[in-house]
């Protein structure tokens, strides 16, 4: 021990030990925190997976051709189980000239066109043979050909549909590489009430917020 170096006092030794102790505890706490990473879990809340029904590509209605293809029950289309041949069912109207849909057909809600103008069943159904349609030029069409029936009135939309522009296409854009499938009118439109009904939208995006705030409430003013 040289004479110039002073031996530290007991007080400064205590202080050194105290500082070292605090640093040790601090380091240990830091190590524990980093290994456990308690905030990792809290900042990454689970976002529920979207309902698979929103991923489905199937059309929401089935056409007659679809039912035939699936060999489904076609008893709804056997009109002459109830109706008589060569005796077309009469149509009844109320005072406002609104068609009265009989109880046997209560699943049909009439809503084709505005102002109740298109309320004659035989505009489309064939009076003389209920198993076919009657097109506007007087010819008969099978149930499978319903899209042509629609086209006899809705010309521009039919033209677009034939070009693949009205309604959805599935399959291949490049027809040399694969097949494409065009939906029929009745796959999307109910012929008795063709306006497409409203539906529940898929969930909105969950914004990247840390921590995640509660879901934004829909603005009352914009939804009315």
């Amino acid at each position, binding site marked *: 021990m040289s004479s110039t170096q002073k031996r530290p006092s007991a007080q400064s030794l205590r202080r050194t030990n105290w500082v070292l102790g605090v640093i040790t505890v601090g380091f240990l706490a830091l190590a524990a925190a*980093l290994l456990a990473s308690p905030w990792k879990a809290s900042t990454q809340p689970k976002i529920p997976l979207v309902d698979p029904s*929103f991923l489905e590509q199937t059309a929401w209605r089935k056409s007659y051709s679809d039912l035939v293809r699936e060999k489904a029950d076609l008893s709804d289309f056997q009109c002459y189980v109830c109706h008589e041949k060569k005796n077309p069912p009469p149509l009844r109207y109320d005072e406002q000239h609104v068609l009265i849909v009989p109880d046997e057909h209560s699943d049909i809600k009439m809503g084709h066109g505005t102002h109740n103008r298109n309320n004659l069943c035989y505009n489309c159904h064939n009076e003389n043979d209920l198993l076919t349609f009657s097109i506007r030029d007087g010819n008969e069409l099978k149930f499978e050909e319903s899209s042509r029936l629609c086209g006899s009135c809705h010309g521009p939309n039919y033209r677009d549909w034939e070009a693949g522009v009205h309604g959805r296409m*599935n399959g291949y854009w490049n027809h040399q590489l694969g097949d494409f499938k065009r939906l029929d009118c009745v796959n999307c439109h109910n012929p008795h009430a063709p306006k*497409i009904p409203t539906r529940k939208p*898929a969930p909105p995006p969950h914004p990247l917020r840390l921590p995640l705030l509660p879901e934004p409430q829909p603005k009352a003013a914009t939804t009315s």
Partner: protein
Amino acid sequence: MGRRNFLRSSAAFAGLGALAASLSPLRELGDYSSVDEFMQKYYKEMTPDDMAKVITRIENDVQRQYGIRPHVRDLKPMDGAEFVYCLNLTRCIGCRKCVHACVNENNQSRNPEIQYIRVLKLPHGSMDIDKADHEYNPESVPEKGFFYMPVQCQQCHNPPCVKVCPVHATWQEKDGITVIDYDWCIGCRYCEAACPYWARRFNFTKPEIPKERLNPNMSYLGNRPRKQGVMEKCHFCIQRTRVGRYPACLEVCPVGARKFGNILDPDSEVSYILREKRIFIQLKEEMGTNPRFFYYFEK
């Protein structure tokens, strides 16, 4: 052992422990980075042999991570095809099915959510994006007095995102698709800032994809799983469209508002629309980006 030595050694031990703990995030590095990947060449300079090796590496990585052997391809643009997208604003009902079909097809992160399509709700009679709301969630859509405008990558002829990339990790291919090489991207996010359509998304964290929702049909420039710190965006479903199929967002649209095809083919749906339909909007056309994405209204 004296008290001093005990304190010294315990402090040293704790210090080493803390050092090891602070380096622990490096353990996760092994999940998405390897020497092969680090030494990988630039996409345009790779030979077919190089690409075959890269594809095997990606397939192995995906299998290790998700337990599913994917089918990864490097699909090149078709000759005589340039893609255009048309979207009918009269038909769109804002149901967001396209958003989720896209997420499912393209293996985007579910947590946090990354979505390429953002559906804007706008009041009738306005195209003012400032009035748009993309977080709408009513009981049913469409709502009266509003129309819906889905916005995704517009695949511009003159893409600002490509111009700003400092490492050429994103470029426009000859079929019009602007692609990203996720292995070349440095994550600077310049392209995100440059894009006027908010079409580019950044992986702030490691993407989370549930195994049961992983799409094993993958392509190198398309929907292979991304890693943390890279950009991604809509690529017109390269893994589908470059083999002739329609994109996923189109195939799920319940009203047929989305139309996709080859503009060089006069018989395609998009050629028909651009010829026959009346009103077109290229979003923010004053930017001079000249999108390949057209919005139109029915007569």
